């Protein structure tokens, strides 16, 4: 992004506690003995010390105010003993097993995890383990796509990164079952912070579907600051789905950066119902010719929730296709933000870009800020974007009620029909149905 954060001389006040924590803890972080990692962490630390948390003065954070973070002092989450987790979220049918990694308060939980059913050659393990067993592979990928310069939260994650999933699907291998990644936040006494890092590496012609679940079992003010780096080689397909249902006091940030090779394909879909404040950044770079990316999502917020979606599609090569379909339902005094940037670089001819964000305001006090941004430097391209804001159709509501359907159910049906248009973008049927059900659950829980 073109945004620049200016260093403000002395370390911003907001950064100080985190820097002190880092300086105290750095020796205990995973991979502490690796010189390259220590250097990477130091870069993250220094950058964060310089810029601190973003403020609304920054163009890309204009609509999302992080002031609420100032009042809370987050401690790095300490490894929690497994407690009270009977059922973990899944998109699989009841009782079905499949590959999954579970992280509790940011730490890998081996007992609840399984790599069973993965084809030969596929590696699925925790990043902390990978730093011990295959540091060179990690070094090749970590920090390559998500760089701290203009991204304060990525800088913070880079300093503190502790654990997270690493998935490597080698050349030519197709993984049929979705790989599930479960991030659980447990209730702690004090506000705690986690900084997980996800690495997904798909070799030439590889295919894989990843489903991330983010759930909170606590009611505390926790901070989850995720960064994912996704490498999609030539001819490869990665479908990357996420559902975020954290507690309504938590803060959830994520930055997913993908690079897509020639004829490659990257899908990203995020379903948001949770967190007091969330921001999902998705950055997909079409780095090879004839590649494509579908970046979509559905957000449903109520109460005082704030949900920010900021996407950046970077068309760097010719014949690329991008498609973005976002839909949101916003109730009470909740607020949503959608910022969608499409960049078509010089030479990226025959680019086809499409972007739409449609929001449904369910109360007079609900709010949406939509900001599309097209930056086009090639002349033979087709790019369109749109944003709409609507309310529930009163005539349709009356029609349904006149047939005996209760008001709440009629509303749910209408909201569901509205959101379905985004959820239908999910290519994987199992995931699509599971997400549809979660959306229905949101409406029913009103």
């Amino acid at each position, binding site marked *: 992004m073109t945004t620049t954060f200016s260093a403000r001389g002395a370390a911003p006040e907001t950064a100080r506690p985190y820097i002190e924590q880092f300086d105290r803890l750095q020796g205990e972080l995973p991979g502490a003995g690796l010189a390259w990692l220590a250097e990477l962490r130091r870069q993250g630390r220094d950058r964060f010390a310089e810029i601190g948390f973003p403020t609304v003065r920054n163009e890309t954070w204009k609509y999302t105010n992080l002031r609420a973070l100032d009042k809370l002092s987050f401690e790095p989450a300490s490894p929690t003993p497994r407690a009270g987790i009977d059922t973990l979220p899944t998109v699989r049918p009841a009782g079905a097993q499949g590959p999954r990694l579970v992280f509790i308060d940011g730490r890998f939980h081996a007992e609840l995890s399984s790599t069973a059913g993965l084809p030969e050659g596929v590696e699925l393990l925790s990043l902390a383990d990978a730093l011990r067993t295959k540091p060179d592979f990690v070094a090749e990928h970590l920090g390559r796509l998500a760089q701290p310069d203009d991204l304060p939260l990525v800088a913070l994650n880079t300093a503190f990164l502790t654990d997270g999933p690493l998935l490597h699907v080698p050349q030519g291998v197709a993984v049929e079952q979705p790989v599930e990644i479960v991030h659980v936040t447990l209730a702690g006494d004090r506000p705690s912070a986690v900084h997980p890092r996800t690495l997904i590496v798909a070799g030439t012609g590889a295919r894989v579907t990843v489903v991330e679940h983010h759930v909170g079992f606590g009611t505390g003010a926790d901070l989850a600051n995720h960064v994912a780096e996704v490498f999609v080689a030539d001819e490869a397909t990665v479908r990357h789905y996420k559902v975020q249902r954290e507690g309504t006091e938590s803060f959830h940030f994520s930055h997913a950066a993908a690079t897509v090779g020639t004829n490659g394909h990257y899908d990203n879909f995020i379903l948001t119902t949770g967190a007091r404040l969330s921001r999902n950044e998705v950055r997909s770079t079409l780095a090879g010719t004839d590649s494509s990316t579908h970046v979509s999502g559905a957000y449903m917020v109520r109460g005082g929730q704030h949900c920010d979606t900021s996407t950046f599609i970077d068309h760097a090569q010719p014949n690329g296709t991008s498609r973005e379909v976002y839909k949101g339902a916003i109730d009470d005094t909740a607020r949503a933000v959608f910022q969608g940037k499409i960049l078509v670089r010089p030479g990226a001819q025959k680019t086809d870009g499409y972007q739409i964000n449609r929001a449904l305001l369910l109360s007079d006090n609900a709010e949406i800020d939509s900001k599309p941004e097209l930056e086009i430097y090639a002349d033979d391209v087709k790019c369109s974007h749109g944003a709409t804001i609507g309310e529930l159709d009163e005539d349709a509501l009356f029609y349904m009620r006149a*047939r*005996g359907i*209760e008001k709440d159910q009629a509303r749910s*049906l209408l909201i569901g029909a509205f959101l*379905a248009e985004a959820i239908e973008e999910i290519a994987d049927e199992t995931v699509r149905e599971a997400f549809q059900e979660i959306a229905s659950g949101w409406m029913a829980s009103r």
Partner: protein
Amino acid sequence: MIEIKNLHATVDGKEILRGIDLTIRPGEVHAIMGPNGAGKSTLSYLLAGREGYEITEGSVTYYGKDLLEMEPEERAAEGVFLAFQYPVEIPGVANTTFLKVALNALRKHRGEKELDAMQFLKLVREKTKALGMSDDMLKRAVNVGFSGGEKKRNESLQMAVLEPKFAILDETDSGLDIDALRIVAEGVNALRSPERSMLVITHYQRLLDYIVPDHVHVLAAGRIVRSGGKELAVELEKNGYRDFGANEAA
């Protein structure tokens, strides 16, 4: 029994219904005819519970209950059904889903067991066939992309499935060709029973050749200005509404 007494209603301060009195007993079919703008649709919306009207005077008693106090869904549950003059399109909601949710809501209210997907499909297929509708119309979103005639048939289908106690048909004949009209009328006649009442609103006498009413009323400028037997419809067809001080539109 439905008793409408001295009903006055305004929209945005404008008086549209200016004292309606009408009593409909179980088993009776009443027809309301009248020029455009007379207040026929307003009356039907009011009976179904649409918001946006201010009732300044009068009452509606439905089998002993104050109908005007009830929510639209409660009225439907108690057997009130309005076939809309302009059926509403609901993108993204399949016609079958809509019908099934509606039917099961009513069954639940009546203390009957909800139908499962198979039972429902069987029932709805039967009714669809009887109305000469295609299965395809069931899969499509409610009224979306339906022709005028298809929308009216869809209203008839809903009525056939929901089996109301008091059906209000607001110009169900408009937009139908003669064959469709006959089919829809047959559907309505099949529902006629000593327990059911109907209020058939129409602009033309044609429909009343098929659905023969017990009473005919003329509504003009927000009032019932004349009532009579089915022969009144014939007279109106001949002379129009001129005699009632209304301008002859459409």
